C-alpha cells in the first residue's frame, strides 16, 4: 500500500517535471544553435547591420529590420487593443448592467479563440482592400492591416484581465467616491483605475507579449520583405514571419541559413521572456491586497 502511494507520487512528480524540461529544452536548443551561428556571424554585425538577407547570395545578417517590423506591427496592435480593451473593461465594470456583462464577456472572448490563420485571411483579403479605398498608397502586403487585425484579436486579453483587476477593487472605494459626489467617470478614472493599476499594467504587458509572438497574421498579411522602416503602408517582415519563411523553404540542415532561425528565435524569446517576467514582478510586488 505504502509503496503504491510512493510510486504514484513519483509518477505525478515526473509529469510536473516535464514543464521544467520544456523550458530547459527551449533555452538549450536556442542557445546551442545560436552559439554556432555567432561563431560565423559577428554579434556586433547582428545588432548593427541594417540589412537581413541570409537567403540571398550577398548575405547580410542584421536583425534590426526584423525587430523594427515586429515592433511596428506590435505598436499598431496595442494602440488599438489598449484603449478599446481598457474602455470595455471600465464600461463592463462601472456602467453596464450585470446581465449585459454576462452575455458580452464570453462573446468578446470568442475573438481570442478564433485561429490566427483566419485573422490572416481577413487582414489580407478584407481589411487591406477596404483600407486601400481610403489610402491609395497602401501596398497589398503591409504592417497596417496586419497590426489592426492583431489589435482586435488581443482586445479580450486586455479587457478580460483588466476587468478582473477592476472587479477586485473593493466596493467601499467606489462608494466613497460616489459619496463625495463624483460621477461614474470620475470614479472610474480617479479611483478605480489607479487602484487596479497593477492588474491593468499586467494585462497590457501580456497583450504586448502576445502581439510580439504572433505569427500567422503577419506571415499572411504583412509581407516577407525585411525592411528597416516605421512606415506602416509598405511590406515588412517580422521575426516570426522569417522563421515561417525559412521553414517553408528548402534550406539545408546545419547550414548558416538554417541557424538563422535559431538566432531570430532567441531574439524573440528574450523579448517575450523579459515582458512576461516584468509582468510577474509587477503582479507580485505591487498587487494591492484588499482584505
Amino acid at each position, binding site marked *: 500500500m505504502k509503496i503504491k502511494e510512493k510510486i504514484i507520487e513519483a509518477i505525478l512528480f515526473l509529469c*510536473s517535471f516535464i514543464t521544467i524540461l520544456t523550458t530547459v529544452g527551449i533555452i538549450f536548443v536556442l542557445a546551442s*544553435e545560436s552559439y554556432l551561428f555567432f561563431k560565423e556571424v559577428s554579434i556586433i554585425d547582428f545588432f548593427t547591420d541594417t540589412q537581413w538577407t541570409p537567403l540571398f547570395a550577398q548575405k547580410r545578417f542584421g536583425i534590426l529590420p526584423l525587430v523594427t517590423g515586429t515592433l511596428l506591427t506590435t505598436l499598431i496592435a496595442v494602440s488599438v487593443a489598449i484603449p478599446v480593451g481598457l474602455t470595455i473593461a471600465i*464600461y463592463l465594470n462601472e456602467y453596464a448592467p450585470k446581465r449585459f456583462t454576462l452575455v458580452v464577456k464570453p462573446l468578446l472572448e470568442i475573438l481570442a479563440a478564433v*485561429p490566427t*490563420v483566419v485573422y490572416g485571411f481577413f487582414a489580407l483579403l*478584407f481589411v487591406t482592400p477596404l483600407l486601400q479605398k481610403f489610402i491609395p498608397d497602401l501596398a497589398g502586403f503591409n504592417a497596417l492591416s496586419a497590426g489592426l487585425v492583431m489589435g482586435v484579436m488581443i482586445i479580450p486579453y486586455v479587457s478580460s484581465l483588466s476587468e478582473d483587476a477592476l472587479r477586485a477593487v473593493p466596493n467601499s472605494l467606489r462608494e466613497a467616491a460616489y459619496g463625495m459626489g463624483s460621477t461614474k*467617470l470620475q470614479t472610474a478614472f480617479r479611483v478605480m483605475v489607479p487602484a487596479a493599476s497593477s492588474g491593468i499594467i499586467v494585462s497590457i504587458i501580456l497583450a504586448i507579449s502576445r502581439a510580439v509572438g504572433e505569427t500567422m497574421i503577419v506571415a499572411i498579411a504583412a509581407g516577407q520583405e525585411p525592411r528597416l522602416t516605421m512606415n506602416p503602408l509598405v511590406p515588412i517582415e517580422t521575426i516570426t514571419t522569417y522563421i*515561417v519563411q525559412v521553414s517553408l523553404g528548402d534550406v539545408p540542415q546545419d547550414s548558416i541559413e538554417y541557424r538563422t532561425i535559431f538566432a531570430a528565435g532567441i531574439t524573440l524569446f528574450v523579448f517575450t*521572456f523579459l515582458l512576461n517576467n516584468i509582468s510577474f514582478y509587477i503582479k507580485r510586488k505591487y498587487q494591492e491586497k484588499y482584505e
Partner: protein
Amino acid sequence: MSNASRNNRIKDQIFKIFAIGCTFFGLLVLAVLLGDILYRGFTRIDWNFITDLPSRIPRRAGILTALFGMIWVLVLTILISFPLGIGAGIYLEEYGVKNRFARIVELNIANLAGVPSIIYGILGLQVFVRLANLGNSILAGSLTLSLLVLPIIIVSTREAIKAVPKSLREGSYAMGASKWQTISNIVLPASFGGIITGLILAMSRAIGETAPLIVVGALVYVPFIPNGPMDEFTVLPIQIFNWVTRPQSGFIINAAAAIIVLLSFTFMMNIVAVYLRNRWSKKMKF
C-alpha cells in the same frame, strides 16, 4: 446645478456612448469577419470538398488529407497531453503545494504559457524531428503541440482541484482512505467538470495552431491520407495558409470554405466548454 457638475455629467454621458461603441466595435469586427468568410466560402462546401484529395485545380481540391491529419494530430495530442497535464496539476495542487520545487514549477508554467507558439515549433524541430529522429511525422507534430497545451491543462486542473472543499478530503481521510484513494475517489470526480473544460479549451487551441506545425515540417502538399503516427501529414490551418498564399482566386474560395469547417470545430468546442463551465460552477456550491 452648477456649471462644473453639468459638464461632468455631459462628459460622463459621452464616455458611456464611446464605451458602448468600443464594446460593439469588437463584436462588429467578429460579425464582419464571419459574414465575409461565409459569403465567400459557403457555396463551395459540399460533400466532394470534404472527400476530395488536394489538387492543383481549385474546383477539384478537397480537404480530406488535412482533415485526417488534423484528427490524427488531435488524437495523439490528447493521448500525450491529457495524462501529463492532469498528473502535473494533481501533483502541484495535492502533493507539492508548499515545497520550493512547486514554486519554481509554478513560475515556470506561467512563463511557458507566454512563450510564442512558434518557439515551441523550433523546440519540436530540434528535439523531436531531428534528435529523436521522428522526421516530419504526425508523432513529432503531436508531441510539439502537447508541450504547447500543457500549461493550459495544468492551470485549469489546478483551478478545478482548488475548488474542491477541504471538508470532502477530510471526510475521506477520516474513513481511512489513503492520499491517492482520496484523490482518485473524491477529489477528481468532484473537480471533473472544471478539468474537462480546460481539456476542451486545450483541444480547441491545438486544432487552430499553424505556426509550430509549419516549423516542424507539416507538409503543405500531402496527396495521401496518413495511415499511422509516423506518416507525413498536413492539417486544416496549414491547408488554409497554403491556399491563401496562392494567386488564383479559386483557392481563396477554397480557403474560405476550409475556414468555415475549421471554425465550426473551434466554436463547437468553445460552446461546450462554456456550457460545462457554467453548469459546473452552479453545481460546485458546497
